Every structure is written in structure tokens, then in C-alpha cells.
């Protein structure tokens, strides 16, 4: 661990790419992205590792590239985790203030959060994040910081993200296998939202949908705090797979067609347009109807968004997301997906832009890198706490609550 170092690295083991982003925290606390390394991911399906040795090699390649670009040595990373096993839910903790004058001390806050954390998770599950939402003192809701207030009964609402312990261990193991420390694991959906949303947007309420290669993460903010998180184990890979099956082309070709000719909507103008497929084997060239390609693709894209919509419907938070929906991940590159998303979700939808950061323009502008950038941002919040405050209580506070509120 090198907490004193201003170098912060985010590593994302994605289904389509392994990506390392290097950030530097300046003296003024400004985060600057100075390096980016990536390599094609070969052994990850639906966000989870299927071949550890291939993954180790991909990690090494990405790290080496990032090191060269940033001209630093990377010794530890913030690691993004995802997968269909990750779930989020809200929980509430209670604590009675015992001091004679009923003034709430930092210890009370510590205790109430500890109580909220004591959740009945089954043995194989581990908590990834416990995010504080709001405190309430003697029934008075919406209190951001109760320290110094008077009250007898302190309560806190938290959002808990958890996953299966063994499946969370796999990526950590893979990273440690290439002699790199893991500072902390971060749910990738949370990381993306940190990269994309400003404080104002979090206050207004927003939905972030990260459509990755193998998984789609979504996270709902309302009144400045996380209200809902979830993962669907479907993503861009499924679109390619559908195309490969439906158009009877090999997967790499399907992937290429998706990127070059794909769209989330089918227009009447697509009818009759054909694409000539090059053929190396000497067989006659094949043609593919763009209409078919886009029909297959739009159905899958719509389905992914409908599933997200279904989840949001269940939370009853739709009216509280006034800033609208922000899309990121490779899936956000699909042409016209923002229009489809705003139709299905019933709110304005746009492609998310990484903000409040400086550095490599090429990295900041691309939706694929928002997760890795968000990981760096998460790391910067954690490290700022370590730099500015010391002592167990501050460390604890930073850990549980404030990282996402500062951004």
C-alpha cells in the first residue's frame, strides 16, 4: 500500500477489454488522468473470469501500456468488480444514544452504521459497499450529518451492494497473481456513476446505465444518494452473438458488422440495403441485409433497456430522476440508443460525459472508459481522506459515506 503516493490506478476487467487508467492527484486535490492502457480481454464472460492465466496476461499487457504512457510504476490498483451475482438493496440501522446529555458523538454514528451493516446475508455473500443515504434523529428524516445534534434514537438508511464471496475473490486473485496490490474493490456501476455525474445531477436524481460487453450495470441516484443498484448479465456480447446466429456469420465478423452498421432503431430507409461480405475462402461473396441486422440488434437493445426499466419501475423512483438517464460503456456507442432509451425509460437520456477531470482528452471523451476513470475517482476520494484526515473515525467515515458526495 502506498497511501502517500499521488498516483491512483483504476483497473477494470471487462468482458471486451482490460483497461487500466492512471490518475495523479495534484497538491490542490485536482485529479489529472495521465495514462491509459488497455488490452483485448479474451477470457472474461459476463463480467467474470473463465480462464485465469489468459486474464493475467491481459492484465499485464494493459498495466505495461499504462505504465509506459504515464511513465510511472504501478504497484496497486482500485479494482472494478461486476457480474450477475451482485445485488443491491436498502437497509436501515438503529442505535440508541446513551450519553447523558443526548448529544450525538462520532462514536454513535460509528455504531449506527455498524448496526445497519449487520445484515442477514447468506454465508456465501460478502458486502462490497455500504453507502450511507440519510440519518434520522428521533424520527426527523433527511439529516446529512448528525454529529453534534441532540437526540435519543439515531437511525441511518444505507444502500448495501453485495456479491458472492468466491466470485468476488476471482478477480482479486488474478490481479494479485501479477504482483499488483488491490487497494479496494469497487462495483463498476458505482464507478461509472462517479465518473459521469456531477453533484447537481446526483441531487436532482439520475439513472446511470453502463452497457458493457458482458453485463449491464445500472445505478439510481436520488436526493444526492444511491437508492438502487443492479446488474444484468447481458451486454454487447449478446448483441454480437445474436447477429452471429441470425446472420450466420462468425462472431468476429458479427462484432465488426455491429460496430460498422449497427443501430438501435430500424428505419424504413434500411430496407433493401445490402452489405457485401468479403470472403477469404474463395467462395462467392455473401450479402447481408442491413434491415435484418438492425432488426436483430434493436430487439436486443430494447430488451436490455426494458429489463432496466422493469427494475426501476419496481423501486418507484422514476419521478425522482429529474436529471434523466446517462448511458455509458461500449453499448452507449450504438447509434441512436439514446432515443430508444428515452422512449423506453420515459425520461431524457443522453450519452454520459466524464466531467470534472482534466488530462487525456482521448480517454475522457469515450464512454467505454468511464468505469476505469470512475475507479480512479473513487481512489482519489479515498486517498484524499487519508491525506487530509487521519485517525480511525475519519477513515471510517470516508469509507462508508463521503466518497460519493464530494464528487
Amino acid at each position, binding site marked *: 500500500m502506498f497511501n502517500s503516493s499521488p498516483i491512483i490506478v483504476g483497473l477494470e476487467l471487462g468482458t471486451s477489454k482490460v483497461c487500466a487508467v492512471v490518475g495523479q492527484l495534484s497538491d490542490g486535490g485536482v485529479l489529472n488522468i495521465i495514462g491509459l492502457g488497455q488490452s483485448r480481454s479474451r477470457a472474461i*464472460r*459476463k463480467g467474470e473470469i*473463465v480462464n485465469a492465466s489468459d486474464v493475467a496476461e491481459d492484465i499485464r499487457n494493459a498495466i505495461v501500456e499504462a505504465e509506459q504512457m504515464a511513465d510511472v510504476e504501478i504497484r496497486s490498483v482500485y479494482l472494478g468488480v461486476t457480474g*450477475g451475482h451482485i445485488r443491491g438493496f436498502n437497509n436501515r440501522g438503529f442505535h440508541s444514544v446513551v450519553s447523558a446529555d443526548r448529544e450525538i458523538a462520532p462514536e454513535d454514528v460509528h455504531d449506527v452504521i455498524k448496526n445497519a451493516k449487520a445484515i442477514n446475508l447468506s454465508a456465501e455473500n460478502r458486502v462490497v459497499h455500504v453507502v450511507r443515504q440519510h440519518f434520522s434523529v428521533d424520527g426527523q428524516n433527511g439529516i446529512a450529518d448528525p454529529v453534534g445534534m441532540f437526540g435519543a434514537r439515531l437511525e441511518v438508511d444505507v444502500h448495501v451492494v453485495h456479491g458472492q464471496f468466491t466470485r468476488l475473490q476471482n478477480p482479486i486473485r488474478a490481479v494479485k497473481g501479477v504482483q499488483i496490490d488491490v487497494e479496494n474493490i469497487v462495483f463498476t456501476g458505482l464507478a461509472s456513476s462517479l465518473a459521469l455525474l456531477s453533484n447537481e445531477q446526483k441531487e436532482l436524481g439520475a439513472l446511470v446505465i453502463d452497457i458493457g460487453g458482458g453485463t449491464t450495470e445500472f445505478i439510481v441516484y436520488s436526493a444526492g444518494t444511491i437508492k438502487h443498484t443492479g446488474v*444484468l*448479465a*447481458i451486454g454487447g*456480447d*449478446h448483441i454480437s*452473438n*445474436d447477429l*452471429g*446466429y*441470425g446472420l450466420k456469420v462468425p*462472431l468476429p465478423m458479427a462484432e465488426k458488422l455491429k460496430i460498422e452498421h449497427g443501430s438501435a432503431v430500424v428505419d424504413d430507409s434500411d430496407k433493401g440495403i445490402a452489405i457485401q461480405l468479403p470472403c477469404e475462402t474463395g467462395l462467392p461473396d455473401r450479402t447481408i*441485409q442491413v434491415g*435484418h441486422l438492425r*432488426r*436483430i440488434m434493436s*430487439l*436486443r437493445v*430494447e*430488451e436490455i433497456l426494458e*429489463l432496466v426499466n422493469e427494475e426501476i419501475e419496481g423501486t418507484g423512483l422514476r419521478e425522482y430522476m429529474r436529471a434523466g438517464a446517462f448511458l455509458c460503456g461500449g453499448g452507449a456507442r450504438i447509434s441512436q440508443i439514446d432515443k430508444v432509451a428515452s422512449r423506453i425509460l420515459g425520461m431524457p437520456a443522453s450519452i454520459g460525459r466524464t466531467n470534472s477531470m482534466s488530462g487525456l482528452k482521448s480517454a475522457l471523451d469515450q464512454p467505454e472508459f468511464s468505469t476505469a476513470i470512475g475507479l480512479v475517482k473513487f481512489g482519489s476520494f479515498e486517498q484524499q481522506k487519508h491525506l487530509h484526515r487521519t485517525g480511525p473515525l475519519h477513515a471510517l467515515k470516508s469509507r462508508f459515506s463521503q466518497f460519493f458526495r464530494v464528487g
Partner: protein
Amino acid sequence: MMTSPDTAPVMKTLSIRVIGLGGAGVTLVGKFHAEAPDGVRCAVIHTNSRVLDHSPCAERVLLGAKLLRGLGAGGDPDLGRAVAEDSADQLKSLCSDTDLVLIVAGLGGGTATGVAPVLARIAKDAGALVLAVVAVPFDFEGQRQRQAQAGLRKLRGAADAVLCLHNQKVCQLWNEDTRALEIFNSANELWVQGVQGVLNILTRRGFIHVDFADLAAVLRGRNSESCFATVEAAGENRGRDLIEKALAHPVLDRGHALTEADALLVTLMGGPDMTIGEVNRVMDALRRQPEDAQFIMGASISEEFAGRLSLTVVAAKHAVQDVDQPNDKNSPGGGRPGDPQIETQFLQSPEPESLSASRFVPPPPELTESKKSELFARQGGRGGKMRKAGSRWRQGQLPLEIISKGRFEKSQPTIHHGEDLDVPTYIRRGIKLN
């Protein structure tokens, strides 16, 4: 449409003969005997004179008195079949002047397993419709289970319709500590309820009428997976209670049988106070199976049911054809389907007069050639000589289009609401590209 009792046309009352076969059959008919509706006559048949003596039923037939000396068939179905063939005249007289013969038997032993197919054949020869309501033993009964399955296959070949109660399903209701007698009692209880329910379907005139033809349509060719259950409810919330009871019924696998069934016959009986809302609610709740499934419903009103509702469900699932093939190729008309001899004989053989009275024959739907031959093969002949001609050979087919999941073949499937999301969306939604 509702017709008030006094304007209803006079109908021929169906004469029904309920025959209890073997130990379980005798016990059951004994229980049922006292409450039998009008026009239903009961009889019991056994090879063991002691069992027969204990039956309250008046009409008793002891088979093989000479051969077996009234000591039973000793669990040997071949022996049962032999004595039944031997006393064919006796059985025939039992089935004469009857429209419908209901065979009640617990398969697995010697008498029931051996005699039931023979009795069914004889009854059919005598011009009656044959419905067999049988129970299959518990899994732990071992040898009996195997005999029962063999008997069931034979019976399916001989009877018009077979309703089968799997005792094993009753087991789900109980835990380790339940006394064995209770299980047998509750199995019997369910069986009696089912038989009564089925008899009610057949005998009562409903304002949405269901008759034997409907029942046979549901069961024909599907009977290996059929199940039946009757539930009753009374009181203020009887409509809702009835649905709850039906969905919790062990024989219906807690509602699974309903969703999986591809043919369903549901009849609701109530007093004059039954409301249309109740009928609607019950039918809606039970219509859970896929769209293409056959759903036949009936409803009737009877003074006896004042203040309560009774629901009888007969659910059948299409199973692999599970009927004994006739192995006697030399018998008249023996052969495979598609054999022109069978079709012509079937088409030429006139419907026996005695059968047409109670059976509604719908106009034939348009069928493809292959479907036709399959149907002919399934129905078999009506006349006695044609019994063995009804060969059930049918080419099994595997689903040919196996949808590849491509690169997700080996990964953990993403299941959402029972749908495998790894399968392309357009295939799951059945959208054609061209």
C-alpha cells in the same frame, strides 16, 4: 345459456355401471356405493372371496372360483387375466344394457392389473363406453409399480379413456412421521372425490354442458399424464377459497399440473346462488396454461350444492405414446398405421347403434394426410374385431432446431422470469426476419 329446470328437454338418463376391481377397487366402491347418484349401479369384482364378503355392495362377482378357490390371484396379473378370460360371459352380463362402464381399480396387484384390460375390452364389445379410473401404487411398492405400469399400458389400449391417480403425489403432503395408514386413507379419499367429481360431470346437466365426449377428447392419446381432482368450498369467500384449494391440491402438483397441461376440463358446480362473478373468477384463475392448450369448461347448478361450490379438474399432458403395441401381427386387422386395410376397415365399420346415443360426433376438421393416419391409429376400431387393430405406432420426433447459444454455451445462463436471455431476443419473441 341458462335454461330453467321446468323448460329443460327430457333427456335420456345415462345408465352407468361402476365396477370396483381388486382390493382397492372393492374398498373404494364400497365407500362410494352409498352415495352413488341415480342411474349409477355399482358392482365389485375380486378373486378373493373374503374381500368380497366384506363389501357392502350388493352385486359381487367372484372370479376363478374353481381355479383359485376364492383365495386371490396372488399378485400375478397373468393369473388375473386368465381367470377373466375364463369368466368372460359373467363379465359380459355385468356390462350389458349399460351406456358407460366406469372401472375403478388400484393397479399393481394380480386381480386389478390382470382383469382390468380384459373387462374394458369385454365392456366395449358389449357396446358401452369405458372409462377407467385407476390408481398407480407408491414408488416404494417396487414390483407392484412395474406391474401397474404394464397393466396401465394394456388398459389404455382397451378403454376409451383412462384417468390415472399417482399415489406418489399424495406423499408430498406428508412428512416422515405421518402414519402409513393416513397416507393410504387420504389417497383413497382423493380418489373417491375424483370419481364422484367425474361422475357428476357425466350425470348432471349443466347450463354449460360437458359430457363424455368432452372428457374423452381431453384424455384421448394423452392419458399417461392425466390427473384429476375435486375440491369444494363454502362460505362467504368460497370463490377464492376454491381456487386456493385447487392450487394447493397435491394431485395437481400445487398448480403445476394446470400450467403444464395441454388439455384441461374444468367443471364448476354450485347451488342456485352461484354468481357469474364466481364462475368467471374461478375459470380465470385456472386458465394458466399456454394459449394453444385445449380448455373445456362446464358449469352446472344443483339444489344439493346450495351455499357451496365444487370444482372438478381433469388435466392431461401430452406424453410420449405409452400404449402397448399389439404384438399379434396375425390377428385380424393387425398391422401398422398407414396400412390401407386398417383405414378402410375403420371407415367402413359402422358405428354401433348403442354408442351413438350419448356421443356427439363433431364434423371432421381439415386434416393433413399424416395427421389423419395418426388419428385413425389412435382411435382404433370401434367393433370388437378392430380392437387389436388399433396399432399405436407413431414416429417419434426430436425438436430439430436446437438454438445455439454461441459463445454463452458454457457460461452460467442468464435466466430472467424463466426466460433464457442468452438466446437471441428475436428468436424468443418469434420474430421472422423475412
